[in-house]
C-alpha cells in the first residue's frame, strides 16, 4: 500500500501559514479593509490637525497625540479585518474544510494570527508615517511653532519615536484582541460589537468620573485608554502608568482574549 504523499513540503506551521495566506490574499475584502485602515486613520488625523489651534498663550496639547488621533477611528477597521479572518470561515462553513485539512487547531489560529497581525502592522506603519508627515506639515500653521514651545514633528525625537512605533504596535495588539474574541464567539457582528464595546466603554465612563481615584483606575485598566498612553509626549510623568506599561495592559487584554479564543476553538465543535 502506497501512501500518497500530498505536498507536505514544510513544517505544519509553514503549511498552515501558506494556506491561510492564500485564503486572505484571495479575498477581495482584505485589500479594501487594509486600505480603509490607512485612509480612515490618515483622514481623521488630518482633520484633527486642521481643527486644532494653539493660541499665543500656549496650550497643553500634545502634538504627537493630535497628529495620531485617527488611530482611535482606524482601529475599528482593524477590528473588522481581524474578526472577519475568523468569522467568515464560520459563516460560509469553510471552517470545517480548514479543520479537516489541518486538524491542529491551535496551529491554524497561530498562522491566522501571524498573518493578520503582519498585515495590520504593515498598514499601520504606512498610516502612522503618513499621519506624522501631515502633522509636520499642518501643525506649524496652527500655532504649534517653536515660539509656542513646539518643535516640528520628527522621528529623530525619542518620545516621538515611541509614539509612532507604539501606535503601530497598538493596532497590531487590537488585531490580536479581535482575533481572540472572534474565535470565542464566531459571529462577526457579535465579535465586532464586543471588541468595540470593550475598547470604547472605558474612555466614555472615565470621562465623567470626577473622582480622580476612580478616573485613574478606569483609565489604566481600559485596553484603549491605557494602550494609547504610548502616544503621550507631553506630561508623561502625570500619567497613571508609563507609556510602555500602558501598552502592556493592552497586550494583557489581547493575549487573554487570544487564550480564551484558543480554548474555545480547541474544545468546541466547529
Amino acid at each position, binding site marked *: 500500500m502506497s501512501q500518497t504523499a500530498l505536498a507536505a513540503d514544510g513544517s505544519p506551521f509553514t503549511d498552515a501559514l501558506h494556506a491561510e495566506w492564500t485564503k486572505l490574499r484571495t479575498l477581495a475584502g482584505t485589500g479594501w479593509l487594509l486600505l480603509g485602515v490607512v485612509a480612515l486613520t490618515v483622514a481623521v488625523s488630518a482633520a484633527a490637525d486642521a481643527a486644532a489651534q494653539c493660541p499665543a498663550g500656549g496650550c497643553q496639547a500634545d502634538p504627537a497625540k493630535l497628529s495620531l488621533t485617527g488611530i482611535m477611528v482606524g482601529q475599528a477597521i482593524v477590528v473588522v479585518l481581524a474578526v472577519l479572518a475568523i468569522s467568515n470561515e464560520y459563516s460560509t462553513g469553510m471552517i470545517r474544510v480548514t479543520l479537516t485539512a489541518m486538524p491542529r487547531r491551535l496551529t491554524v489560529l497561530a498562522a491566522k494570527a501571524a498573518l493578520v497581525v503582519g498585515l495590520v502592522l504593515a498598514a499601520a506603519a504606512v498610516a502612522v508615517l503618513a499621519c506624522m508627515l501631515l502633522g509636520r506639515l499642518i501643525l506649524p500653521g496652527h500655532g504649534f511653532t517653536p515660539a509656542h514651545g513646539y518643535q516640528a514633528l520628527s522621528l529623530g525625537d525619542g518620545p516621538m519615536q515611541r509614539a509612532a512605533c507604539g501606535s503601530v504596535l497598538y493596532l497590531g495588539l487590537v488585531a490580536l484582541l479581535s482575533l481572540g474574541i472572534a474565535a470565542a464567539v464566531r459571529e462577526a457582528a*457579535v465579535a465586532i460589537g464586543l471588541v468595540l464595546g470593550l475598547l470604547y466603554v472605558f*474612555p466614555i465612563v472615565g470621562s465623567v468620573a470626577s473622582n480622580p481615584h476612580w478616573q485613574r483606575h478606569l483609565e489604566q485598566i481600559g485596553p484603549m485608554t491605557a494602550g494609547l498612553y504610548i502616544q503621550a509626549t507631553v506630561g508623561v510623568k502625570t500619567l497613571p502608568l508609563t507609556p510602555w506599561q500602558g501598552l502592556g495592559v493592552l497586550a494583557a487584554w489581547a493575549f487573554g482574549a487570544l487564550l480564551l479564543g484558543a480554548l474555545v476553538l480547541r474544545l468546541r465543535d466547529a
Partner: protein
Amino acid sequence: MTTITPYRSPVQQGRDGFGQLLRAEWTKFRTVRGWVIGMIVAVLVTAGLAVLLAKSTSPQCAAQTGNGQQHAVACGQPNYTVGPGGELVRDDFDFIRQPLVGSGSITVRVTSLATASGGPNGPQSVLVPWSKAGIIIKDGTSQGSAYAAILVTGGNGVRMQWNYTGDAPGVPGAVSAASPRWLRLTRDGDTVTGYDSADGARWTQVGSVTLAGLASTVQAGLLVTSPVRSVYSASLGSGSGISSPTVATAVFDQVGRTGRWPAGGWTQDVVGADDMGVATAAGRYHQVAGQFTVTGSGDIAPLIAGALNDGPNITVRDYLLGLFVGLIAMAVVATLFMTSEYRRGLIRSTLAASPNRGRVLAAKAIVIGAVAFVVGLAETAGAVLIGTRIAHSEGVNLYPEPWPTELRIIVGLAALFAVAAVFTLAVATIVRRSAAAIIIVIVTLVIPFVLSAPPGIPAGLNDWLLRVTPAAAFALQQPAPQYYQVAANYSTGSGYFPLAPWAGFAVLCGWTALAVILAASLLRKRDA
C-alpha cells in the same frame, strides 16, 4: 366520466394581513435565545455601569473618626441659590439702593465701565464681555428674589435682563465718556419696563416684563458686578480650565427718580458674596457731587452645570453613558435580525410567504423598533433611577433636574434606541453582511461621541461631527440649557451639544429615513 376535484388542503388558509406579518417577525425575534439573552444582559450591564458611574462621581472627603482613623465620607452639599423659576442661580452683586413704594421710575447715565482681573501680578485690565453695570428693581435684597434690570455690559452692549434667565438686547457698542448710555426702568404694578438711549433725549423701549407677585415696596438702585473669567483648554475635550475672578468699576451720574422714595439717601449693600473680597465698603462706592463710582464682583445669572463650571459638576447625564454598551448590543441584534435571514437562506422563505417586500421590511422595522424602545426605556429609566438614588445616598452634588427635562431624557433616549435600531436594520438590509453593517453603525453613531471624551479631539471637529452624523441625536442627553449670556464651559464633556435636543434627534431620523428608502428600493430590485 369522472369529475376531477382539485385538491384542497385541509389546512385553513392563513390571512396574509400585515398583522400576520408582524406576528411572524415577532416570533422570529423572540425564539432566538441568544438575542433575548443579549438584550437582558445589555440591560443588566447598563444598570451595573450606572452604579459604577454613580460611585465614581461620588466625592470622597477624608474625615477623622473618634479613634483617629481616616475614613472616606461624603462631602457637604454646597448651598445653591434658587431663582423664582426654580432654577439654580448666582445672585452676587454690589447694590446701591433705596426703597421704592408703588409705581415709579429711575433714570441714570453710565459713563464708564472698566474691568480688572486679579492675578498673581496684581490687577490687570481685561475685557469681560458679560460684566454688568446698570439699574435694577428687585423684590428685596435676599438672594434669588425676582428682579428686572437694564445694564451696560463689557462686550454685549445694553441688555435688559430679568429673573436670571431673561435677556433682551438694547443699544450695541461699548460705553465710554465720549459715548455714554442713558438707562431707565419704570415700574407700574407688576410690570417693569426698560428703556435705553444714546443721547438722553430719544428713548427706545428694550423690554417689558411682568414680575408676578412683586411686593409693593421694592429695592431699586445701581448694580455693578463682574463674573469669573475662565480660559478653557477647549482644544482638547473637556480638558482643564483656569479661572480668575474679575472686578468691575462703573461711573454713574444724572440719577433721576420719580415716584415715592421714602428713604433719605442711598444705602450701600452687597447681595450674596463677593468673588474678589474687595477690602472695605469705602473701596466699593463713593459719591461726589452726584457722580457715583461703584465697584463690584460676582454675577447675577443662571448657574451653569457641568464639569469646570460654577454649578453642580454632576448631572444625570453622567449616569447615562453606560447606554453605549446597550446601544452597541442593540445594534448587533438589529443587524443579525436582518443578516441572519440572508446567512441561513431564510429570506427566501420569508419573501415567498409575503411577496410584498416593502411590507416585510416595514414589519421587521416595527418589531425591532418596538423591542428597542422597550429595552432603551428600561435601560435609561434604570440608569437614571439608580444614579440619582446612589447620588442622594452618597451626598453627590447632583444638578437637580426639572421633571420635564428628565422625562425628555428618558423617553427621548428610548426613542433614540428605537430609531437607531431601525437605522441599523436598514443598513443591514443594504449591505447584507453583519460585519459591514455593524461597523457602519458603530462608526457613525458611537465613535463621534467616543472621540469627544478625553483625550478628545479639537472642539471644531467635534462640533461638526455631532451636527452631521447620526450621533447628533445624543443631544437628547443634554441635562441643562445653554445660556449665551453666561460665559462657561459648554463642551460635550460637560454635557452640552452643538444642536438642540430634538434637532439632534431629527438628524438621526433624517439619516434613518434615507437608509430605509434605499433599503426598501434595493430589497425590491435585488434577488434575495
